[in-house]
């Protein structure tokens, strides 16, 4: 999961789509929110 922080915005975006998590663009101010949501979904 720590690999999430090393992913590109595009890769995170694809993963969010894969997990069906609604989202906007992955930018500096939204990244941590989406990483947290992905961690929850992957757990």
């Amino acid at each position: 999961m720590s690999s999430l922080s090393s992913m590109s915005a595009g890769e995170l975006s694809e993963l969010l789509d894969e997990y069906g998590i609604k989202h906007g663009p992955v930018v500096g101010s939204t990244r941590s929110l989406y990483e947290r949501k992905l961690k929850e979904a992957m757990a």
Partner: protein
Amino acid sequence: TSQKHKDFVAEPMGEKPVMALAGIGEALGRRLEEKGFDKAYVVLGQFLVLKKDEELFRDWLKDTCQANSKQQVP
């Protein structure tokens, strides 16, 4: 709608501080400022970047300043 919110929307947002936002009190405002969201327009920007999705915005607000559901911007 609270008087605070009426006051806020009665004139352009301009450079109003984040604490001018209804629902953002001293404690929450301080934490947002610490994270760089010192002006109301920056918080608006975040809402727009979250595609104006209220649930995402609430989640972000909770993450960013441990806001509980009661404390959030209407």
